[in-house]
Each structure stands twice: as C-alpha cells, then as structure tokens.
C-alpha cells in the first residue's frame, strides 16, 4: 500500500491594512460566517476573535533577512516555523489566514511564499487582501509608506467605511488607489461586509491568472499628478519577445532596482513558441512559467506591469521594447 498523498497545497490569504481600517472586523466576519470551512489564523495579538472550529496561532512578526546577497530579500521567520508546524496536520483546516500588523510591510510575507522551500511545497499564496479606510486613506497615503505598500501589494482592496464618505470622496479614493495599483480589485464595503468568496479562494498569485484582470486606468497613461511615491506603469509590445534579451534585462533590472519595484507582472509571447510565459516578481524575487497557448486569433502582444517607487517610465519602456525580436 502506498502512503497517502500529502502534497496538496493549502491556500493562504494574507490580510493587511492600516490600523483601524477594519481588518479585525473582516477577519471576524470570515471566521463567523457559516461556510463550513475551517481556517488556521495567524494573528499578532489575541483580539476578540469569534472562533470555534478554527485554530488561532499567536505570532510575533519576525522579519529575517536572507543571506543571498539581496538586501531587500526578507522573509517572515515566524511564518516558516508556524506553517511547518501546521503542515504536519493537514486536513485539520482548509486554509490559512495570516493577519499582519497595521504597520507591516507586506513584502516579507509575500516573499516567504516564494523563497522558503517548505512553505512553497506545502502552501500557495492565494491573495493579499488589504482593508483600507475610505475616510482616512488619503491622509495615510501622504504620511505612511506602509499604507502605500499595502495598496501596492494588494490583489483585493476592501474599501471600507463607505458610510463615512460622500460618493465623490469615494471615487477620489478609488482613483488614488488605482494610480498606485490598477490591477487590484476594489470592493466597497461598510463594516467590512464583503462576501467571503470575494476575499477567499481567489488564486490571485496563480501565474495562469496573472494579468487576467484588465486594469482600469482612469486617465490613460497620463495620470501624472502623483498622490503617493508608489505608482504603476504598464507597457505592451506587439513583436515577439527574445527570451535571452528579456532574461538579461529583467534580471539586471530586478537586481538594480528591486528595492523600488514592489510587484512586477508580465505575460510574454516568446519568439517561436505558441505558449504564453507568465512572470511575476516581488522585489527581486521572481517566478515564471509557461501557462498554455493563447487563444486562436488573439493578438500575440506581450505585456508587463511595474508597481513601485521612482519608476522611470521612458527607461522601462525602452528596456521592454528592446526585448522584442528585431523587426
């Protein structure tokens, strides 16, 4: 008799958000909803969590630098330890939720899922969900780099406390969010009342879905009135990509500018290959794979998105364009 399969990956949802944005309310909502799923929840302080079937793990955020010559490569040591312990008892829960402290930079959490071999084997990052306070976000974005990073890293943004803002104010906040991260899905809410399936089971880090959502750029590529240091740029090219040129360019770029590049995503059509290549990076840590062929008749355009600080748009554009095969 063969041993039972222990390889199924457990989905992990990372819940971030500035202090007072409504993170704990959302967590309580997820845990108390009658969904029949059991979660292991990693939190930083025991709050008033209503948990019966769920396992709550109290952790201190321990951010460790990796000794791999990459200064921005940090991981959450406590998560590696905790996930290692939880994975010995698979079947006890259906998913893991990691709540970060309000002032946390989401990068170490995200990088943990790319860097640690055991965590990678046992789990997959499902989505980074950021809860923001519609009323106070504009002020936070001005004075807090963490608040900007939490938006930049988000796959889903719960725009909370909608009851406290006028419709025009809400639209303005959405515009600010999209200027930082046009790829995040925004869910407006009051008292964090979003449906569970809006935040759990999103599979947002799946390479095959990486650029599935078309960004909602509000003003084309010309939104130059920056509300925050963190911005995004995206480029599309029509000629096939030369794999060698792209690899050389992106490796050097991530090496040199990785600290400022928070998230990078791309879908590439390599010359002579019918398949599409999906690519993503968190700071300097990159991951990529073929994700199947493009639909017959679809334009074979390659696309890349950068979310980060001090993005040199013309330079990035020239760099990406030069990765195409010669015309």
């Amino acid at each position, binding site marked *: *008799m*063969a*041993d*039972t399969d*222990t390889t199924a990956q457990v989905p992990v949802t990372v819940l971030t958000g500035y202090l007072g944005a409504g993170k704990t309310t959302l967590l309580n909502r997820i845990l108390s909803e009658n969904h029949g799923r059991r979660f292991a929840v990693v939190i930083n302080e*025991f709050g008033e969590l209503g948990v019966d079937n769920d*396992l709550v*793990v*109290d952790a*201190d955020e*321990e951010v*460790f*630098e*990796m*000794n*791999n010559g990459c200064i921005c490569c940090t*991981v959450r*040591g*406590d998560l*590696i*330890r*905790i996930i290692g*312990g*939880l994975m*010995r*008892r698979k079947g*006890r829960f259906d998913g893991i939720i990691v709540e970060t402290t309000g002032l946390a930079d989401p990068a170490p959490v995200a990088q943990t899922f790319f860097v*640690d*071999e*055991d965590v990678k084997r046992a789990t997959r990052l499902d989505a980074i969900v950021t809860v923001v306070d519609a009323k106070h976000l504009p002020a936070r974005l001005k004075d807090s780099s963490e608040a900007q990073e939490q938006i930049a890293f988000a796959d889903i943004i719960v725009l909370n406390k909608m009851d406290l803002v006028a419709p025009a104010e809400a639209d303005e906040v959405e515009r600010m969010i999209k200027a930082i991260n046009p790829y995040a899905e925004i869910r407006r809410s009051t008292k964090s009342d979003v449906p569970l399936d809006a935040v759990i089971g999103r599979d947002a880090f799946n390479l095959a879905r990486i650029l599935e959502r078309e960004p909602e750029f509000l003003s084309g590529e010309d939104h130059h009135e920056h509300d925050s240091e963190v911005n995004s740029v995206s480029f599309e090219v029509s000629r096939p990509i030369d794999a060698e040129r792209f690899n050389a360019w992106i490796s050097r770029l991530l090496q040199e500018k990785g600290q400022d590049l928070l998230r990078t995503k791309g879908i590439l059509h390599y010359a002579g290959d019918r398949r599409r290549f999906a690519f993503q990076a968190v700071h300097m840590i990159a991951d990529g794979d073929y994700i199947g062929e493009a639909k017959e008749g679809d334009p074979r355009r390659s696309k890349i998105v950068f979310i980060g600080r001090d993005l040199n748009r013309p330079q990035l554009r020239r760099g990406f364009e030069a990765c195409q095969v010669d015309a």
Partner: protein
Amino acid sequence: MAAVSEADFLLASRGVAKELGAWVAGAVFDRAGRLAFALADGTLHRHAEEGDWPVAVAHEGGLLSACADAKDGWLSGGDDGRLVRVAPDGMVTQIADYRGKWVDHVAAHEAGVRAAAVGKAVHVLGVAGAALKSLAHPSSPGGICFDAKGKRVAVSHYNGASLWFVGAKEDKPRLLEWKGSHHAIAFSPDGTHVVTAMQEPSLHGWRLADGQHMRMSGYPTKTKSLAFTARGRWLATSGAESVVLWPFFGGGPMGKAPTELAGGDEVMCSAVACHPQHEVVAAGFGDGLVLITEVASGKVVPVAPPRGSAVSALAWDAAGARLAFGTEAGFAGFVDLSRR
C-alpha cells in the same frame, strides 16, 4: 536501491512496522530503551511486544516536539501550549502550561534537567517540574540541545546561537554570532563545537575554544537533521541527495570536502541518526527509504523500502541495537540488529 527486493530490507526479517495515521514527529527511546512514536496529532504510541501499541493523548492540539525525559518516559511540547510528560506506563502529566504560545522544541538530559522553547524564551525546568529559569532570546529559537554532560544548553535563533550554562547564578549567554536564521542545532560529543543548520541552505559551526567560524555549504535544500558520530569525528547531515558527512578531524571541516554516502537515487535525505558506538549512520530519505551506511567503507544496508512519504523521524537506542523510524504519512517501525 531500485534493484533491491522487498525481502532484502531488514524490516522484512528483523523488524516491525505499523501505520499510525499521523505525521511522526519523533521516534524516541526513553533512558531505559522503551520505544515510543510521538505523532503530530498529539498522541504518543508506545511499542508493545504483544497486541496493540497503547496510545497516550499528550496534547489536545498538535504535538510539535518530543524527546526522552530526564529519567524515564517521554517529554513533549505542543501547539496547545503545554509541556507534557508521558510515563513508561502511559500516564500523562502536565509539567507546564504556556497557554497561547507554542512549545516548539523540547530537550532533556539525564542529569535531571529539561528545557522547552516557548515563544522567544527557553524555559529550564527540574525533574520535579519546578521552573528553574527562563532564558530570553532576540527571536524565537529554531532548535535547542544540551551538551553531553547536560551542563550547557545551546539555542539557535536569528543571527546566531546562544550558549547558556544551566547552573549559572547569573544568566548571561555566550553569543555565537552569524548573520541569518539558524534552525537545527547540534553539540559535538566532546562539547567543543556547536553547529547549526540555516535557512540559506547551509550549515554554520563555531569552534568554542577560539570562536573560529566554520561554513559548510552546497546543499540543494535545507538541512533539518544533523548529528555527530559517536566520537565526534564526523557530522552527518540531511538536505542533499546523499548523506553528507563533514570531517571534524585533521583540520576539518574548513577547507575539506565532505564525504557523500548512499547517494544516487535523486531523492533528498530527510533524516540522519548516528550509531551510539560505531561510525555508522542511519539515514531516511524523501521517499521513505531507510538505510544504514558505514562511514569507512561506504557500504549500505537497506532497512525499510520506500513507500512514498518522507522519513521524518529516526533514532537509535542507546545500545545501538535497534533503529526506529517514522514517516510524514505515519508509517512507523523499528529493526532489531542484535545477534540472534
């Protein structure tokens, strides 16, 4: 091992094994040679010659770490925050409750001392259960171990390891510094070296006499299991597609290449255990294969065939006659090598 038939494995002729149903966190012989398997579901299964193996429920949640208790029986820590003793007759006694925190690592020494890593602290307790001291660390310990005499406890953590004298009046550690996150830790049998396994993946060692650093690298995956051979000449380690042994003699391991044994199957070694007397190493692999290999000759003796799940626990008894093993999927057993 592909050409080896089931019957060639020692388990078939000299062993006993069972499906226990949960991740084997520890195969542990107590000080009197009684064998028990500590499972991640919180239970401890004691081997019995006849009939079913009695089960003790040590933890309400998951069991994270287990070892032989100081005098007899077993000691375990769990994610229920409890430090628990299971007596040879199976009676479970709670020694301490650190509610809200995980008891990640436990260790004990026959000199009559126990240690439990909880949060960022290592609590030192006596055999009667009294808390003797609480040692604070800059981050959560990745591993703890006593030296051969039970006088010092070494604790690995972020950016190095701390060395504490258990009986010291004033608790001030000797800090062994090295940048990075350190996990599994081992003392050389003569107490002159401390070695840790790192996140990177590589090993780091310190020669305690002069603080000399030793870097041992080249692993494809993290080393989770490391052990010195009986007289401390070799350090056996997991984390590669063979058993990697570093020489701790003739000026090594600095500038020396490690010896690699029992490789060739392209499966990672997941656990090692050194024979208590001879330069013989038992190794478990990612596919469940267990084998014994002699360092001098490199000769390999197959113990248990691969069943698909990684070996997560491996231990010799003090006499070196029995070798116990367990896998992540809960298959556990032992072989008896004593003369018949």
